[in-house]
């Protein structure tokens, strides 16, 4: 099968959304969005986390139904799409998290569910034809691997090409790439940009969602900036410049977010000296967090921030180096040891690592501190409920009762339950890993206020975050991680998206910018 786009006449509009709005209970994710993509056009879609990009994409993919507005796909106008509509209409996604079967070959993944069969009564897979169907797609994309390779043996960038090949095999007319370059090396990114150029020449419409503005500038014909569910700018030609894009993306007054600490930062509470993790054994991390301080830890995905947090908390103990708490060298070989020292972790994936979702709010809140709800050697349900009610009130956890399952709470309230788990045990050091991911704006601000209150009460806070607005708006200092080591530390007067990004990609800042490392 030689892949060929069905429509190659230029400037034909493939689809358009008009006045699409999506309300969720309490939040409006999209407000009257108009968007259209033509054949052979690359549209950059940018916006900060929570701007509405994923809602918009889910509507296009037929996963989410818009509250109002119309969608026109190949001339048909309708209020919403279903997933089969989207696939039939030629809309294909390459998600950030790839959906491939690692145990199958490249060709089998590309043709999954549509395998060519031999004619016989057993309906066996025709391996020769399978290979023949997959090969030209890979050649077109300039892939450096064959159709028989096992996906498990491919790099992330190669797997991405498999996803794109799969989309092409479905005769995709519109390809949506969600943060495709976030984990790629420079050369891999170059290759992907070349692939996009080739697709464009073949008349495919591409939506390129990315935080990497340099790449957006290089490949996009038009850039759409989303903020708070609205399209705030539509840029083309010479207007596609990183500074201009950033200006539209940010737009929000960052100072509103920052709550200064009640007093000057105290002594060093957490010190990491030459810490090496199994993730990047050749690199080491040294940093310190002071009492009463919120230290933001920024960096790109894969820079080793989560692995650092897991090492400090004892999930995967560090290979070498020293951890000091309150000036004393400590040995943390398992989470219980960290907890005994008053060092707690609010993990990145709260549904998997933070909570037992089927447990009630009360049972989750007491899980790390069961001795506190024991009387006469047995669990005391009344004491447990009291403890949970106390934290429900203090943290304003919104749930009808503390005996409802944690799964029934909203993301923000779930995160507060994770916090409640630790706060009953006087934290000295709290590590937050992406504390507000997937949480609505209101709850975000409550979490920030809680973090500040904890710091003011004498805790040292290390906040890992990929949300620029959050890192800049909440931190007292920012440490930036690159490739498993700290590439620089910024004090408040040097906070800027540009400085953070420069350090995150491993560039050295000019002297005098306040980078202390």
């Amino acid at each position, binding site marked *: 099968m030689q892949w060929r786009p069905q429509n190659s006449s230029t400037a034909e509009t493939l689809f358009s959304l008009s006045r699409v709005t999506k309300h969720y209970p309490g939040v409006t994710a999209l407000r009257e969005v108009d968007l259209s993509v033509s054949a052979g056009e690359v549209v950059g879609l940018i916006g900060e986390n929570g701007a509405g990009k994923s809602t918009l994409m889910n509507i296009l993919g037929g996963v989410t139904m818009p509250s109002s507005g119309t969608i026109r796909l190949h001339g048909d106008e309708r209020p919403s799409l279903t997933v089969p509509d989207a696939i039939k209409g030629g809309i294909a996604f390459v998600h950030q998290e790839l959906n491939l079967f690692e145990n199958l070959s490249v060709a089998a993944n590309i043709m999954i569910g549509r395998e060519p069969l031999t004619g016989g009564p057993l309906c066996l897979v025709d391996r020769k034809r399978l290979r023949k169907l997959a090969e030209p797609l890979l050649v077109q994309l300039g892939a450096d691997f064959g159709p028989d390779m096992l996906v498990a043996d491919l790099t992330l960038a190669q797997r991405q090409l498999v996803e794109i090949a799969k989309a092409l095999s479905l005769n995709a007319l519109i390809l949506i790439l969600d943060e495709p370059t976030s984990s790629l090396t420079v050369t891999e990114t170059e290759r992907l940009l070349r692939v996009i150029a080739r697709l464009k020449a073949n008349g495919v419409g591409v939506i390129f969602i990315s935080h990497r503005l340099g790449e957006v500038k290089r490949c996009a014909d038009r850039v759409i900036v989303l903020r708070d569910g609205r399209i705030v700018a539509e840029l083309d030609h010479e207007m596609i410049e990183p500074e201009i894009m950033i200006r539209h993306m940010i737009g929000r007054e960052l100072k509103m977010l920052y709550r200064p600490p009640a007093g000057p930062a105290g002594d060093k509470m957490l010190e990491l000296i030459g810490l090496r993790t199994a993730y990047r054994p050749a690199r080491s991390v040294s940093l310190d967090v002071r009492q009463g301080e919120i230290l933001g830890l920024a960096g790109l995905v894969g820079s080793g921030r989560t692995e650092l947090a897991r090492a400090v*908390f004892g999930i995967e103990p560090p290979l070498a180096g020293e951890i000091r708490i309150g000036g004393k060298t400590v040995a943390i070989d398992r*989470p*219980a040891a960290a907890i005994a020292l008053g060092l707690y972790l609010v993990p990145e994936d709260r549904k998997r*690592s*933070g*909570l*037992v979702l089927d447990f009630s709010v009360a049972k989750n809140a007491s*899980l790390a501190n069961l001795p506190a709800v024991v009387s006469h050697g047995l669990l005391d349900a009344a004491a447990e409920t009291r403890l949970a009610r106390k934290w429900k009130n203090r943290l304003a956890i919104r749930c009808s009762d503390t005996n409802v399952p944690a799964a029934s709470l909203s993301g923000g309230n779930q995160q507060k339950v994770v916090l409640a788990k630790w706060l009953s045990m006087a934290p000295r050091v709290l590590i937050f890993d992406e504390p507000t991911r997937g949480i609505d704006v209101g709850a975000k601000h409550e979490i920030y206020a809680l973090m500040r209150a904890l710091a003011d009460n004498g805790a040292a806070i290390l906040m890992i975050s990929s949300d620029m607005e959050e890192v800049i708006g909440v931190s007292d200092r920012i440490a930036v991680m690159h490739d498993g080591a700290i590439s620089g530390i910024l004090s408040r007067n040097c906070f800027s998206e540009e400085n953070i990004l420069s350090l995150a990609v491993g560039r050295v800042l000019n002297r005098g910018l306040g980078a202390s490392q």
Partner: protein
Amino acid sequence: MNRKDLGLLVLILVIGTVVAVINPRFLSPVNLSNTANLIGLFGIFALGQAFVIISGGIELSVGSIVALLGVVFLDLVAGNVIPWGAAMIVVIALGCLMGLVHGFLVTRMGLQPFVVTLCGLLVYRGVARYYTDDATAGFPFGASFPWLEWLTAGRFYGVPHSLVMFAILASIMAVVLHRSVFGRRLFAVGRNEEAARYSGIDTQRTTVTAYVICCGLTAVAAIFIAMYTRSISPSSHGNFYELYAIAAAVLGGCSLRGGEGSILGVVLGTILLQVLQNLVNLLGIPSSLNFAVMGSVILIGVLADQQFAQRRERTARSRKVA
């Protein structure tokens, strides 16, 4: 008592009534006492199975442990090697050791519980047969241990001591599972091991403890069963007992995904299984159909439970929307 347990209780009462109406001998003191004895014997190791299933694992070697520890116990006692009290302690300690080994292989070596305990099933059975040269183990003619026999196979106003033991152990285990810190941690580990680990719970130790409890209780059951049968042919003694235990736990609301179950449920599940066995005998159903009846009832029970759960969820959801 939750809805599930209540449903099970109602089922037991309904089946009991039907059987009693068809064949009044069901309620005769002799039959009741015999059934009670079997409930006690099978219940003791079913309790242990529940702990392992709640941890997210499974213990398949129960029947072989019953055979191996049974012959060891009879050999120690009948040969007057050590006093029977000491023999009990040795056998229970051996059971706990087996649990320790299973738990170690599952947690530290990262093997799957199914594989580890399947190997246990094969190994212990083989060792039991080798130990007796495949001959039947039993007491020599005229040997008598009145206290031991009274303790394990005696009756108190018609109530078999095995049932008394089961009741005592079930009460203790109910407290351990539902009221102790360990029990809470076990549920957390079974439900979401990663979240348990991030909460500072020593998940490996919790899991190992579940296997130790399971095999320790199985050892206790092995003693009672050995004293009940008084002779053991090691190639068939205890065959399929692990399946009775798993069936009782599943009927009682334990989920094989882990993190779910109750002691009351396991007790009711055991009772139901033995009532079913009894029903086959009393209603003149060919005893060859025994397992078929058991399997069908479990299947229907689990199916009905799931349908009810789905319906409840649907109504709850529609109420939420409205």
